[in-house]
C-alpha cells in the first residue's frame, strides 16, 4: 500500500473510532459497578439492567412507546403503501414536485413541526391524546414507507398486474394476490423503519405529548437532564442491541435501495 494510502487508512480509522465512540461508551458503562457512568468501566455487573426492568416508569414508558410505534406504523404503512401505489400508477406530470412534497417531512426541523402541531392540536382540541400523537408520528414516518414501497414497486413488472386482470382478477384480487406479495419486502422494510423512528422519536413528542403520555425517549431525556446513572446506559444498550438485531436483516435485504 502506498504511503498516502496508509495515511488515509489511519486517518479513517480514527474517524470511525470517533464515530462509534459514544456507542461504545454507552454499552460499556452499562456494566460498570460504580454508581455513576465511568469510562472505562470498572467491574462487571448486570444490576443496572435489573434496575431498568424493575423501575415502573421505564417499563411503562417502554410499553407506551411500543404501542405508540405500533399504532403509528400501522397508519404509516397503510397510508404510505396506498400513496406509493397511487404515485406509481398515475403518471402525473408534476410527479417530481409531488414526490418531493410528499417526502419533505424527512427534512423538516422537528422543532418547527413540534410547535406547529402543539398549537394546532390545542386549537382543534386534539391535544394530549394518544391518537393525535400517533398521527403526528405517522406524518413523520410515512415518507420513509413511501420511499421503500416505491423502490419495490420500481422493480415490479407492470404486465404482471395486467396479466392478473386479463385472467379474471378484479382490483382487490390483483392487489392482494399479485401486487402485495411482490412489494412485501418494501412494505416490510418501510414498516420496520417507521417503527424504529417512531419509537425513538423525541423532539416532536416532547412538544405534543401531554403529561400522561410519557414515552421512553422522553423518560430517558428527562432522566439524563437531572441525573445520570448507568441505568440509562443499560436502557440504551438494550435498545441498541434490539435495533441492531432488527436493523441488520432489513439492511442486508435492502443494500443500496435506501438512498436516492
Amino acid at each position, binding site marked *: 500500500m502506498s504511503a498516502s494510502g496508509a495515511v488515509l487508512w489511519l486517518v479513517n480509522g480514527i474517524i470511525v473510532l470517533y464515530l462509534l465512540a*459514544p456507542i461504545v461508551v454507552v454499552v460499556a458503562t452499562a456494566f460498570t459497578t460504580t454508581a455513576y457512568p465511568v469510562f472505562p468501566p470498572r467491574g462487571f455487573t448486570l444490576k443496572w439492567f435489573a434496575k431498568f426492568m424493575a423501575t415502573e416508569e421505564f417499563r411503562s414508558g417502554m410499553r407506551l412507546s411500543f404501542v405508540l410505534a405500533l399504532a403509528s406504523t400501522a397508519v404509516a404503512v397503510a397510508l404510505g403503501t396506498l400513496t406509493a401505489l397511487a404515485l406509481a400508477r398515475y403518471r402525473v406530470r408534476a410527479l417530481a414536485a409531488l414526490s418531493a412534497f410528499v417526502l419533505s417531512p424527512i427534512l423538516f426541523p422537528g422543532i418547527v413541526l413540534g410547535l*406547529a402541531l402543539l398549537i394546532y392540536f390545542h386549537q382543534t382540541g386534539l391535544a394530549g391524546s394518544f391518537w393525535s400523537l400517533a398521527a403526528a408520528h405517522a406524518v413523520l414516518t410515512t415518507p420513509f414507507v413511501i420511499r421503500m414501497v416505491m423502490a419495490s414497486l420500481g422493480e415490479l413488472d407492470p404486465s404482471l398486474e395486467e396479466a392478473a386482470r386479463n385472467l379474471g382478477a378484479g382490483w382487490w384480487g390483483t392487489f392482494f394476490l399479485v401486487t402485495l406479495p411482490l412489494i412485501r419486502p418494501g412494505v416490510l422494510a418501510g414498516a420496520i423503519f417507521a417503527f424504529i423512528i417512531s419509537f425513538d422519536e423525541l423532539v416532536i413528542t416532547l412538544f405534543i405529548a401531554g403529561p400522561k403520555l410519557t414515552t421512553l425517549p422522553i423518560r430517558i431525556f428527562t432522566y439524563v437532564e437531572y441525573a445520570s446513572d448507568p441505568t440509562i446506559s443499560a436502557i440504551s444498550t438494550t435498545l441498541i442491541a434490539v435495533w441492531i438485531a432488527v436493523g441488520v436483516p432489513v*439492511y442486508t435485504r435492502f443494500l443500496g435501495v435506501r438512498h436516492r
Partner: protein
Amino acid sequence: MWLGLFLVGPLCLMLAISFRGYQAGVGILPTWEVGHYARFLGDPFYRGILWNTLALGLQVTVWSLVLGYPLAYALSGLRGVRRSLLYFAILLPLLTSAVVRTFGWMILLSNNGFINQSLQALGLTDAPVRMMYHMSGVVIALVEVLLPFMVLAIDAALLNVDPALGEAARNLGAGSIRTFLAVTLPLSVPGVLSGSVLVFTLAISAFVTPSLIGGPKIKVMPTLVYEQGVSLLNWPFGAAIAFVMLFVILALFTATFRVTNRGAA
C-alpha cells in the same frame, strides 16, 4: 390529502399566530402585530442566539466535511464485503437514537471523563478542558451525530464519478494527489454541497444535543423555541423564532438549488 391536513394546516396556523399579540400571564391576544419578529431580530440578546445557532451550524458543517470527506472517499473505493462492513459502521450511529449517543458524549466529555483523563495522563493539559456545558462540547458531539449524513452524501456523489476519468488523468501523467485535486474533488462538489446543506440544516435544528450537552447556559434557537413555546407558553414568539429558522433553511435550499441548476445548464 392527510399531509395537507397535518403539515400545511398547522404551519399556516403557526404562521398566523406568530403575528398575534401576546402578553405574559394573559395569553394570546386577538391583535395582530409583527412585534415578535422585531423583538427577535432587534433585541441583541436574541440576535446573539441567532448568530450562535448559525455559527454552530457552520462549525459543525465544516468539521463534518473535513472528517467526512476522507471517510467517504475510502468508502467509495471499496466493494463487496468490506464496503458493506464500513457502510454498516457508518450507518450504525443512525440506527441509535440521538439521545443515546448524546448521553455517551456526556460521559466522555465531562471534566472527569475519559477524554480529559487521557489528555491529562498524556501531559497535554494540566487542568481539565471544559467541554461539557460549553459550545465546544456541543460541536464535538453534534459533528459525530451528523457525520454519517455527510459521508453518505459525498459517497453517493463519488460513486457517480466515472473511474475512467481518474484513470485517464493518471495515464496522462498526473500523480494520485494531482488527480484527486483536479478531477475527483471538483466532480464530487454536488455531493459535498448537498451533504453540507443537509448537515447545516440538521445542525441548526438540533435540539437534543445542544440542550443536553450545552445545558441551560448555551442557547440556540431550537432550545429557545422549546422554552418559549412549551415552558412559557408564549406561542406567538416561539412561532416567530421557528419561522425565522425555517426561512434560513428555505433560503439555503433555494440558493443551493439555483447554484446546482446553473451548473447543470
